[in-house]
């Protein structure tokens, strides 16, 4: 069912944990639906995501997409990170079974929510629509 790359990210997930004193936090999902992802980020003065960590309650695809999205996002600017979508995450993993695509949605959404949280906390909520305009919500 899962590609080798998905299984690699599942067995050896990157960036597990919580960023200390996060600049932005994004959490999606709930126990009822069976998937919860939590992203914490650190952002520098030039809007680069310098650190990102994840915690996930969910299946193999949920863990793999969380891990992959953190690898894709670290070092990027907020705008670049906002362009990452469920499709790009799934592609980066070499594809996901159709019934697991919703997991990649959650991973991208959690990152976007963390970005939104950072902007809002820093009095920049007016920028949210501009930064997240390319996000698939």
């Amino acid at each position, binding site marked *: 069912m*899962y590609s080798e790359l998905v*299984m690699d990210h*599942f*067995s050896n*997930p990157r960036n*597990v944990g919580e960023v200390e004193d996060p600049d932005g936090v994004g*959490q999606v999902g709930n*126990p*009822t*639906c*069976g*998937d*919860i*992802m*939590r992203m914490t980020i650190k952002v520098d003065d030039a809007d680069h995501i310098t650190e990102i960590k994840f*915690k*996930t*309650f*969910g*299946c*193999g*695809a*949920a*863990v793999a997409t969380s891990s992959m999205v953190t690898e894709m996002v670290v070092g990027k600017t907020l705008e670049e990170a906002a362009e990452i979508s469920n499709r790009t995450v799934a592609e980066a993993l070499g594809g996901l079974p159709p*019934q*697991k695509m919703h997991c990649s949605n959650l991973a991208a959404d959690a990152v976007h929510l963390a970005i939104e949280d950072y902007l809002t906390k820093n009095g920049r909520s007016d920028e949210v629509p501009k930064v997240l305009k390319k996000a698939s919500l």
Partner: protein
Amino acid sequence: MRSVYFDHAATTAADPRVVAAMMPYFGERYGNASEIHAPGREAHVAVDEARAKVAAALGAGEKEIVFTSGGTESDNLAILGLLQKLQPGHVITSAVEHPAVMETVRFLMRLNWEVTFVPVDGHGLVDLDAYAGAFRPDTRLVSVMTANNVMGTIQPIADLARIAHERKVPFHTDAVQAVGSIPVNVDELGVDLLSLSGHKLYGPKGVGALYVRRGTRLSAHMHGGGHERGLRSGTENVPGIVGLGVALEITAEELPAQQPRLAALRDRLIKGVLESVDDTVLLGDPVDRLPGNACFSVRYIEGESMVLQLDTKGIAASSGSACSSDSLEPSHVILAMGLGAEEAHGSLRLTLGRENTDADVDRFLDVFPGIVQKLRAMSPLYVKG
């Protein structure tokens, strides 16, 4: 890496003796059992002998056994075969049935039948009061499984059938998980219809049987050449039927020794898991459960993840989590026991079988706590105290 198979409720390996008995019927004794010539007669005799074996294993008469393609077809034949010619009325079933029963009664609901899904308690046992109170003048059938595929709970079928018969209602039981694991006798249970499946009892896939008590009026669900006394058309799957007969013969012989052996292994596994992993509960009835079933809910982590991690260690298991099902719905069985979606998502089902040994249990207990720890470290729900 040592391989451990703990998913016998999903399927079992066909016993080598079963496979050996089946082989001649593919290429050598390949006749069509309905033909009158020598090859046909040879096949016919094999089917008759298998029928006798199945009947003997259940305590039934040979004429009361219908061969099908498996448990799902037997369930469909029992329910639709009994009801399809009647005016829409009422059916009683439980809230924890296998989809082969549940979806068949749901199909009937689309044809204007009404169904009561009797609730179960926290262990998955049918609520007897609710059950007795569900009967109506237009109740035409009861269908309650003998033992559950998810958490292993064994229902009090003899009591349930008796209550149904007091009200003159026929009783069907899906015994797919029970036959071969616990003693099943159609007169002791008092059932009118009983489904069983070959591949759950070390027989081949693609074959099963339906027990139909003499006097029970069934109509065909598979139409065609009139096989199985008009009840189930289709050229007999002779190799499969032969295999099923031998598989049942073997389980009948070996059950007295296997049942306590498996129960002891299962109990050691349960004890080991509950002692080595916090925030974990056993699902299902602690006493009235299948000898090989150990089903747990592990808090803070998700079932498919556990199954995948175990798979990387060569251990096969399954889960009732939403993510591990095609429908993305959590197990209705776990929800019916009053547990929440979270408990369903964290479920892990281990079902032991004939070839499992103490070494398998040891191997599992060696790796499982580490897996739980790794997944909990990753979980947003696990906040260390």
